[in-house]
């Protein structure tokens, strides 16, 4: 059995929405280098819609894949929907993560929450 599902490997090898969003109006960073995972989410929100999203991640394969999948799940969606994204939804969309890697999906959820909070603090 492989370490990760095909989907995890696909998102790890070909991460979607990777990079920096120069005109982001909501940015959130979670995790720390000590534990080996840092995720940074950039959101561009217009008319309560996540118009664009990008991420940067320092971390293992599942951390990169979780970030990538999370961006896909919220891109083009209403802010309200993005707010409700759970780590479970991220993990399920990846066809599951090993138990000891579930925290990667939690980090993805938290990174989006942090970016939304930043948006609200600066734009509402």
């Amino acid at each position, binding site marked *: 059995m492989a370490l990760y599902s095909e989907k995890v490997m696909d998102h790890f090898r070909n991460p979607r929405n990777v990079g920096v969003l120069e005109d982001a109006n909501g940015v959130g960073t979670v995790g720390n280098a000590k*534990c*080996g995972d840092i995720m940074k989410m950039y959101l561009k929100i217009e008319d309560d819609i996540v118009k664009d999203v990008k991420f940067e991640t320092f971390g293992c394969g599942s951390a*990169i894949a979780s970030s990538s999948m999370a961006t896909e799940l919220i891109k083009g969606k209403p802010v309200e929907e993005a707010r409700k994204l759970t780590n479970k939804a991220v993990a399920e969309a990846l066809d599951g993560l090993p138990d000891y890697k579930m925290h990667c999906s939690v980090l993805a959820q938290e990174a989006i929450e942090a970016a939304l909070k930043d948006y609200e603090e600066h734009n509402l």
Partner: protein
Amino acid sequence: MIYADNAATTKMSEVSLKTMISLMEDTYGNPSSLYSFGQTAKEVLEKARADVAEAIGAQPQEILFTSGGSEADNQAIITAAKLGAAKGKKHIISTAFEHHAVLHTLNKLKKEGYEITLLDVHENGVVLPEQVEEAIREDTALVTVMYVNNEIGTIQPVREIGAVCRKHGVLFHTDAVQAVGHIRVNVEEDNIDMLSASGHKFHGPKGTGFLYAKKGIRLVNLIEGGAQEKGRRAGTENVPGIAAMAAALTEAVANLDEYKAKLTPVRDKIIAGLNEIPHSAINGDVARRVPGNVNFCFEGIEGESLLLLLDDKGIAASSGSACTSGSLDPSHVLLAIGRVHDVAHGSLRLSIGEDITDEDADYIIKSVKEVVEYLRGFSPVWRDLVAGKGQFIL
């Protein structure tokens, strides 16, 4: 595939594989049986014991076959602890970067009331004999220091440490799993009382290993039962595995000079190539290391992603990152040589073998450079460092 994880395990050598298969086919007798078919197996077993002994400069009766390095480490340490306790000595000296087979056994003893001193291994990953001498007390029962570190490949001054132990009358054990079959080891010249080794680290089969215990040391059993191994380890002997291990070891020891001459320049080429990567550093002393080991830290990236992408490029390697250890902490070895967590997560160990070519080395260097650059390209840690928001460590 370029297999660069020989410190994890090695491919069985041809002679080892042939020995094993032929014995499984034709010599399946029980060495404890009286009839000649059993006694043939016994002869094979004793020939293997003599060969293993010769490979490390020991006497055959000083070799005990085990299931591998971990069992040998456990038995050596438990033996010394019990022998010490009988004389009221319950202090053990070791180092901070031993294999877990040693460290976890010492932890168990600590819970049983033993006092454990773990010596610092410095930035270069080498413990000094003077440190051992300073740490020895009246109640020291054992000094256990690995011959070669399994992650960073540094060679410890075992002979000098052994001399210090002899001078003070303290038992000396060395976990030589990464040394035997890779560098010259001689228990007499190296002043070693007990030594652990593992077959599959030198092209023998998995599930085999041995413990050398100097004549006069009464080993404590870990496995009770029959009278095999002179009553020091019960259970029918793994005759094909043991003979295959002995065959592999004999061959490895005969070729030590050739092995060193072939691997050292390739190793140094890889080290020089990876040194060109900005904000990277080699782990462990460059000179005092086994011919096959390369270990680096790259700032701003994480080791597991590095390994997965190298795997995609056909390179099998390992890392000391937390994600590869299944815990939140990176390798205790890298922490012991003073690498901070942030940097230790971005480590890479390449342990090359005899089949490595110069072209392989070029390909490894090129691939690692590409992958490190790619991962840094979307690492928020790297971006901050480049932007001056934070200090580079390497």
